């Protein structure tokens, strides 16, 4: 079947029941989304489908009905997305494994809300688990990303 991933057409031959995550990783070699739980409980596999954050580990390939964006396609022409830039400046990541998903959730949040409050950040990011405990810096980085986005607009 044909998908659009990170702006490019992608033909994937796989069982339509295969979760999008595994089709991206094992078949297409798009390694940004990570496997953490397989039950949509940790958010490490978060990608956007038509701008909406979804857990790709639990979305069957056959039900993908829009353009897929993964962290691999977030930077444009080598320029980091404001959220990535903020993550870099705030030095958020420790092990980094959950951060692809964290960043995709934060991008979706800032697409909806220009200047999120602590509560809005907590709500939007609540599905993304981080075992290293980077939450204080995630909060700071989401706020910084909002500023960078505003400055670039």
């Amino acid at each position, binding site marked *: 079947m044909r998908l659009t991933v990170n702006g490019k057409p992608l033909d994937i031959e796989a069982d339509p029941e295969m979760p999008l995550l*595994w089709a991206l990783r094992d078949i297409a070699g798009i390694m940004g989304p990570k496997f953490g739980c397989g039950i949509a409980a940790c958010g490490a596999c978060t990608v956007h489908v038509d701008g909406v954050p979804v857990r790709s580990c639990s979305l069957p390939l056959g039900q993908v009905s829009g353009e897929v964006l993964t962290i691999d396609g977030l930077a444009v022409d080598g320029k980091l997305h404001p959220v990535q830039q903020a993550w870099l400046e705030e030095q958020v990541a420790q092990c980094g494994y959950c951060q692809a998903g964290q960043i995709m959730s934060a991008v979706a949040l800032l697409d909806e809300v220009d200047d999120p409050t602590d509560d809005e950040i907590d709500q939007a990011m609540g599905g993304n688990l981080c*075992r290293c*405990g980077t939450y204080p810096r995630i909060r700071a980085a989401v706020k910084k990303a909002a500023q960078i986005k505003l400055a670039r607009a």
Partner: protein
Amino acid sequence: MASLGKIARRTFLIGAAAIAGGVAVGYYYYRKPYPNPLEGELAEGETTFNPYVKIGSDNTITVIAPRAEMGQGVSTTLAAFVAEELDVRLDQVKVEFGPASYAYFNAKMLEEGSGFNFWDDSYAAETARSMMLGAGKMLGLQGTGGSTSTTDGFDRMRQAGAAARLMLVEAAAKKLGVPAAELTTENATIVHKASNKSVTYGEVALDASKLSPPSEVVLKDKAQWKLLGKPQMRVDMLDKVTGAPIYGIDVRLPDMLYATVRMSPVFGAKPVRSDTSAAEKMPGVVKIVPIESSYGSGFGVIANNTWAAFKAAEVIDVEWGKPAYPADSEAIMKVIADAAVSGEATIERDDGDVDAAFADAPADKVIEADYTAPYLSHTPMEPMNCTAQLKDGEMHVWAPNQMPVLVRWFCADIAGIPIDKTHVHTTFMGGAFGRRGELDYAIYAAKLAKETDGRPVKVTFTREEDTQHDCYRTAAAGHFRARIGDDGLPIAVDLRVAAQNMSASLTSRWFPSLPAGGPDPSMTDGSRNQPYTIPNYRVASAPAPLPDIPVSFWRSVGNSMNGFFHEGFMDEIAHLGKVDPVEMRRKLMADFPAALAVVNKVAEMSSWGEKLPTGKAKGFAFTLSFGSWVGQVIQVAETPSGVKLEKMWIAVDVGTAIDPGIIETQMTGGAVYGLSAAMGQEITFKDGMVEQSNFHDFDAMRIWQAPQFEVAILENFHRMGGVGEVGVPPAAPALANAIFALNGKRIRSLPLSREVKFA
């Protein structure tokens, strides 16, 4: 297995406790204990000075950070050691982890196993530490653990940078025809100011590497440091914000197969009946093979993709054997609690005469308490995985692992090939917390690589397999009593701690032919070695006889439960003695200025003693572990949706702070890890099997639960401590003590969620 057996005996004698906790050594040149492993793998135009530095003719500088990066920032800090003395910027160096090699052995990891208190500078303590160091050298123990990477690398990696710099300067002096003393170095360039001539490191690297290394080097004073002592931009950050494929699970090779395992959920049991025919017929399945190992029995499923392997593994029809241990948590915990009360114990600390102190104690001055802590899973975000390829008599293993030398031994042994034909590539790790000091994932990958006719195979655990086949933090129980004096301070404390023997458990997996070994001092780490002066003070460890349940090193190891036990009980003592808990510590820690300064700092930061509004309260705890002194205060609030964690203040004395930014993140991250466990985590058993399976029933703190943090870093103590684990131990008792202050409920069993609802 002859070599393994020999090494096993040494490991066994030393006590395997050292592994998780943490050791590596000395200056490479001054004895050249091992060949430089970089010699054999240089790129075109590249030359090497020692096991830590490679320089290319194009001025590419590569630094080897031979410890595993699991998030703790070690690749940045170790690279900074070399860069500082080499006089290059951190963004000028490329950081690699290096091959598995004896050259990178960790000496500090065994030092912690010497059994002496961290503050003990006596001749006996120093002798024991240096013997451990010698043992580490013999073992070539290249490991990451015990919060030792920084303390271990501090001297030898700076020396490696300084030695390379001297050789480069000497070569430049010859090339430029000027005295070496007139040359200065900066940003990988050597400058002769008088003549305005300069050369880059790359231009003289080849000549320099042929010179004999200097017999001694002088390291910079702390005041001259440009990189160390200041927060650095992490060398791995850009990769981590762009989703780069840097983890073990991201390994992708031509013609690769994908696999998973389904191992017996009953520890030590084998399949009594199995039928793999339906699973073999599943789409995408290539092969199903039985696996027998010291980690367990079960099946490996090889397929064309990971999802196909997962689906087929579920379909294997198998009946497992019965457990040789009590089948449910209640019975297991009874074994541990009984050991705490009456099991044969080893006395690990014995100040004064505890029995005499209790003999005439009035009943109203004696307090008794029983504590418990559950089994815990590590659950790093990246599930266990490993990729292996066995082709033409050579094996490559790509493993997110903490023990590359052991991975190499085991994989070579499984493949039946020489060690020097076995190559271990240590990848970045999506968390580890001690879990990746185990070897199961590598053993399974090596076994499956024998079945794929030379094709590489990547084994990935499902989260369920990972959660139910961990080597757990041991459950533990404490049976405690104390006698309070007229001034409210403790006169006598008698602590008996029972848990599974972690060293014995590890020996059974790594060297099953060996006997289980002696007492495990890590069982009382965090209780026996705390900086309190109490006239009669006894701490004993009693092993709980549960040899089949695999237990291992979980971030901060024995400190993780003893921190809770010791500091919860100290809070009880303070309450009974009607002494403020912080004031009590000030009195009992008066002999330990570093501890006292930490207590005072965290009290000041948190405005300890200030009256709080109704419905809010603070709790305090302190643990010295891995050489760092940590005090934490947490403030909690009663809210309509439950108890909310509002803010935590942390003061830590690390002796010398190499990277304050990374130290801060380790303190807050360690606290989150400890609080996650304290609030709601437990591994329980039914029918001999772990009941939890994924994040829905073994969750961790979420962002909305995370308190605000404030961290202060002190440098009072004269020796450097570790940072990766030390934020964990005081977190649980600080929270439990805050809850007592909030509502008067003294909780002596973790997790606290059994009795408290958290917001």
